[in-house]
């Protein structure tokens, strides 16, 4: 076992699966010699060759559309979009083809493919490098959307995503790429998709988050626990399809729920989770469900970026309001 970061866990999972499954191919911009701008694919081209780890011309429509073609031929393309801000050109291929191929052909042709992209704010990046638009993909039937928040989950979930028979959007929280280290056993064992992770258990509050916001959520939970408040901390991890059971069971136990996400509030994944709680666990609630999220604005350039991101203080304030609600 070695202590590795989230971005290293991406690398290790890719390496494992390239080795284990000859049908896996990586494609993207600058992923070969350069090892990706975040080094997620560092060393993989040297190890597996230029036919398995492919530097493409600069063209996201092509990367996604070519992946559809590759996938129908029994290959497993894992593409990298350099930043989520450049994923939008892939939408036509993802929505109109990758997500629908199985359904259109009644299972004759399928798209076992993964599209990876780093995402989120907080690294002082240039314009278009900070958005969190995961909800766009959650809205598309036929796609799975996965966002890890620890090195171990990154390793296990990426393996699961590659092995999944359907297209998976795998979003990597760039702000915490190198913030957390964990011992990760490189055993090739996948973690289940479609399962939320209960990271801490407690009976007073359910705190739900994913991605980089888990970092603030964890700090908030630590400070609540220090005050004797027990929290179920849930890392959603797979946003679509959503594991409602885990969330509902927790809310039925605690009766209080706070959802934290970095994406804008309106139409965000928090809204979906809150709606499911209202549909299935309304009568267990002792306080209204609250959301702490990004505002419904364009992520500011970096000088004012911090005013956009949900902070630990704001999370704690919201938690307090929920706990004090009578």
């Amino acid at each position, binding site marked *: 076992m070695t202590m590795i970061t989230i971005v290293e866990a991406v690398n290790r999972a890719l390496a494992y699966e390239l080795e284990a499954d000859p049908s896996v191919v990586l494609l993207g911009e600058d992923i070969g010699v350069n090892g990706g701008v975040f080094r997620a694919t560092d060393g993989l081209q040297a190890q597996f060759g230029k036919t398995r780890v492919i530097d493409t011309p600069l063209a996201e429509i092509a990367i996604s559309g070519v992946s559809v073609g590759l996938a129908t031929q029994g290959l497993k393309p894992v593409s990298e979009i350099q930043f989520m801000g450049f994923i939008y050109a892939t939408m036509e291929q993802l929505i109109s083809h990758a997500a629908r191929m199985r359904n259109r052909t009644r299972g004759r042709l399928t798209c076992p493919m993964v599209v990876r992209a780093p995402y989120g704010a907080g690294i002082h990046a*240039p314009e278009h490098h900070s958005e969190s638009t995961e909800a766009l993909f959650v809205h598309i039937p036929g796609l799975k959307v996965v966002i890890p928040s620890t090195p171990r989950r990154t390793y296990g979930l990426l393996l699961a995503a590659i092995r999944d028979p359907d297209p998976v959007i795998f979003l990597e929280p760039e702000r915490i790429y190198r913030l957390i280290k964990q011992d990760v056993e490189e055993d090739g064992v996948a973690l289940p998709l479609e399962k939320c992770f209960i990271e801490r258990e407690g009976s007073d509050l359910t705190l739900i988050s994913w991605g980089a916001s888990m970092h603030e959520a964890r700090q908030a939970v630590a400070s609540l626990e220090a005050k004797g408040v027990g929290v179920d901390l849930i890392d959603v991890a797979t946003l679509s399809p959503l594991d409602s059971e885990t969330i509902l069971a927790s809310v039925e136990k605690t009766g209080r729920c706070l959802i934290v996400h970095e994406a804008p509030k309106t139409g965000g994944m928090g809204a979906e989770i809150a709606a499911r709680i209202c549909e299935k666990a309304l009568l267990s609630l002792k306080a209204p469900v609250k959301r702490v999220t990004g505002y419904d604005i364009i992520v500011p350039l970096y000088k004012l970026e911090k005013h956009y991101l949900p902070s630990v203080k704001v999370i704690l304030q919201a938690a307090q309001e929920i706990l004090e609600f009578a």
Partner: protein
Amino acid sequence: MQPIAHFEIYSHQFLNSAGDLTLPLPPPFHSPRDLLKPYQHMLRIRAFDSKAVALQRTGQIGTFPSSEGEEASMAGIAFAMQAEDVFLPSYREHGVLFARGVSMEEVLLYWGGDERGSNYANARQDFPIAVPIATQVLHAVGVATAFKLKGEKKVAVTTCGDGGSSRADFNEGLNFAGVWQIPLVVVVVNNQWAISVPRSSQSKAATFAQKAIAAGMEGIQVDGNDLIAMTHVCRQAVDKARTGAGPTLIEAVTYRMAPHTTADDASRYRGQEEVNSAKALDPILRLKTFLMREKVWSLDEEEAFKQKLQEEVNEAAKAYQAMSPQPIESIFDYLYAKLPRALEEQKAQAVERSEL
């Protein structure tokens, strides 16, 4: 069976890498003296780039893309345009923007993470820089089409990289431009690299200029390190567009001497020998050699001018650093013409939370 289509691509050079003028000085230049202004502008761009890189190194601006090595391409584009034309830059063309009246302070603001950097005090119609690669080419098609529809004698000029030429936006843009015969000049700044991907992995075509042919427009290759050729060819294309004779694609062959941005480590994918041999083709060096040989420029003048430039970039940096930050409300204020009622609560919350 018979051949039904032919094409030839011409490559233009007037000043070779040794600084020899191999053809008569072309318009818009009449005498070597006319080259001083663009030459000084090239020096200005280089001085700015090294200042900006230093500011990034000390954490005073964010990631920054240096344009070192591409000064002749930028000055050539800038000096071919008229003030009323519209320029639509990619992220590496601040050197063109400066000549169009955009200030160094504004460019620093932008890369320093402040939206005010795109609210140019001059060049009010020029576009903010485009980060999503090649997207600006389509905007330029729209701008040029608007000129045509409104009967205005203006030209839209846009740039994108060798990498950018692989995107749909670029190719669709050329196609529209060809069909509609609009007043547009697209310059592919072929600096040999798209981050770590070399030119040879971007296209198997012998030139980027020939991408114009399939779109039914003229394509020209230019030595992008030759200010004289760059200005001449760009001016011809701009003039042609202005008279309604259609769009042109220009491939400026140059070299990205610096890493892709300050966040890039170019040693991972290219050797120092390559960079060194590119330095022998330096656009500033060859023009300087020529100007000195023509006795219109001296080492003393160069020294004095560089001194002045140093002051200019230092002043710009100081002015940038002295800017008071935008109020927090500003993150809501420019989203729509009028703040929707639905956002008022969030705006108040943002201000309140900043005081937590």
